[in-house]
């Protein structure tokens, strides 16, 4: 039995510890906002927070996540400044990469109140978006950093 703490809720799972956390979150817990894109840490679709740090859930096993505080897109407050900014700037196109983008940006804003362009690029570089929503992502992060005011 592995016990997980996800979005403030405790889950007990009968599962071997070697399963990537991504699949546990998605297909066992049915928190499907966290996405699978590559499974090798190259796309960022699966980004979640572990103890407040943005991590690729495809690169962590469920065993390693035991006892840690896990937050997924569903657990990030619905009125989080980034989620609001994402709507305001109309960021998503197909939308598939967006939960990962938002979770990555959420860590950035938690640590830097007003990140420079360079910092935004560096932090977001690991998150791919085939639809090319990058210009909107940049704007939305800045908007959220400015407290939602343009």
């Amino acid at each position, binding site marked *: 039995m592995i016990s997980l703490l996800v979005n403030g809720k405790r889950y007990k799972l009968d599962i071997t510890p070697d399963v990537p956390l991504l699949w546990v979150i998605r297909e066992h817990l049915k928190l499907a906002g966290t996405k699978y894109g590559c499974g090798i840490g190259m796309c960022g679709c699966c980004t979640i927070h572990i103890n407040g740090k943005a991590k690729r859930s495809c690169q962590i096993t469920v065993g390693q996540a035991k006892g840690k505080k896990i937050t997924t897109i569903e657990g990030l407050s619905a009125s989080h400044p980034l989620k609001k900014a994402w709507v305001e700037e109309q960021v998503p196109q197909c*939308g598939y990469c967006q939960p990962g983008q938002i979770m990555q940006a959420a860590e950035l804003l938690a640590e830097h109140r007003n990140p420079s362009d360079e910092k935004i690029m560096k932090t977001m570089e690991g998150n791919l978006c085939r639809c090319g929503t990058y210009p909107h992502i940049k704007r939305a992060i800045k908007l959220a950093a400015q407290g939602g005011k343009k």
Partner: protein
Amino acid sequence: MTSRLMTRRKFLKIAGLTIAVLITPSGYKLLSAKEMEKKTSEAFVPNIWLQIMTSDEINIFVNKSEMGQGVYTSLPMIIAEELDADWKQIRLKVAPASDEYKDPVWGSQATGGSTSIRHMTEPLRKAGAAAREMLIKAASEILGVPQSECETHMGEVVHTKSSKRIKYSGLVQKASLLAVPQNPSLKREETFKLIGTSLPRIDIPDKVQGAAVFGMDVFIPDMLYAVMARPYAYGSKITSFDEQAALHIEGVTHVINFNDKIAVCADKPDLAWKGKAVLRVKWSNGTSPNLDNGLLEKQFLKSLDNHGIKAREEGEVSTALSHAWKKIESTYLLPYLSHATMEPMNCTAHVRKDRCEIWVPTQNQTGALQVVKKETGLRPDKIKINTTYLGGGFGRRFETDVVEEAVKISKVVGRPVKLIWTREEDMQNDFYRPANCSRISGGIDKAGNLTAWSHKIVCPSIFARIFPGMVKDGIDPAAVEGLKNMEYEIPNIFVEYVRVDTPVPVGFWRSVGSSHNAFTVESFIDELADLAQRDPLEFRLSLLNKNQRAKKVLEVAAEKAGWSKPLSKGEGRGIAQHLSFDSYVAQVAEVSVNKDKSIKVSRVICAVDCGRIINPAIITAQMESGIIMGLSAALKESVAFSKGGVQTSNFHDYDLMRISEVPDIEVHILKSNEKSGGIGEPGLPPIAPAVANAVFKATGARLRNLPMTL
């Protein structure tokens, strides 16, 4: 989710006002629910687009797939406009796959070719306008006032003299008994309230909360997961495998041998992959064990010496070339490209004896329906296709390979099955954008005028597999897209097509033939301008005298970019334009080339004339999206082949453009009274040549192969 299919009869019995459009050889015919019931025996099946409910909600049925291009918003906007609805009343309904929801122009239900707005505007406007007229008539009868004194506003009919108002919901019962006007008057453009505005997209809030359901996110009670073991090499078959080893993994329920692939089913995907890992499949050699990059390149270039099929001929090209004052010949080579939709291929299927239900992110509902029909033998009315959100499409999801697999597996196991492809399977089992090469010769006269253009393209045929009936005289329409209809006014022009067949399957990839032909044409035009020692912009404009729209986008892009402003050493500015899917797009790219010879694109200015504007924010987003995907392809992407199969496997060896590489992009949308053009694809074609032309300015090096390397 698995509720029984709603029968047509039940659907029509719903209280409310339903408007359907029937397309006949003589034009559109508008029908109410009652009239539809009578029509069921006719060969033509009406499309249902609009249902005003007594609850004040307005259901709008969207028959196109949402893959990021905004159709779930733009199509309802068109109906809501004509209907004078309150946008808040609108409820989006994703249309199931059935004859009722076919694209009236295509006669099939599919999303592609940047056609959604182009094909749907007219029927949707008519449906909305007809309903509005019926509501006015109903109100005038209830109030006992002339129709001419009634207006519509935000979901109500208002009697202007008395200011009495009745909500649409209070009128539908009466309105539904009225005859449907066949020629409702459409609104004048000046009175538009929704069309032309950047209304926020309907799908965005769910996408931001992680609540939007993509194909991957479908959960059906009692569902199994399926994964697939596939061969590496094309044409390779199974010689042996260890079924028992897989079945010994706890949770693995089935191992199914399909001869050229093996499905493993389990309670959870991780268990299915564990089962797959121990299958120890031995594969036979493929059918082309020597296939690799080198071999393919040789085959393409060698085919340039073959005679082609004439696709276009004006004037006397060989005479013109021999009389030319100066002439040049260039060869261009472009690679196979992967779609790399962010969401890998997947499909959930539940096949039962008497019915079947599918959940799939598809661009091709009609195709999916046909596949299910073929695999199950069921009648179409026993098959329900649910279209989920698509995590990217770009043409890949026009294919129905994954539907076929999921249905086959569910048929064997007798339970709902979610089939998930890994990224590696997705990369290695794509229908790629065809590689291709072009040899182009051009000549100019002493005054620097372009007199001759001879173009041979070697390219595999996409249509031969997908729509063989559209291959006319051996010419693949996609291969010569943008060449056959190249707009430059050149007195002598010749285009020929050489079909080349390789083991690599090819398919539609965002902007299709234009994705490569814009590159060769717009690069070579630049080469000719240089030969004539003329400015690339001025040279192009001089060849577009009869083509004001192409001319205008070039002028606007150049002006906004500051075309003649000087740049520093190592920097360059390039321009290109291309017409595709009825939209004109010109782009100026500014690049800098670093000491390490890396190319940095710093700024892109885009001008688009896509006719009537529905939602400018969506147009801008699609232009940016096309530019970024086009840049990604031009600078980074190429599928690698080795040992008879696809070597490329994931984003470590097929990287896409990342945020740090994206230039500043400025989009200018031109006002236009022309019919709406497409927007999903036309932003892509001009960017690669604009960048290549800018690199030429910066360095003097002419890049004729993609992806670009200096």
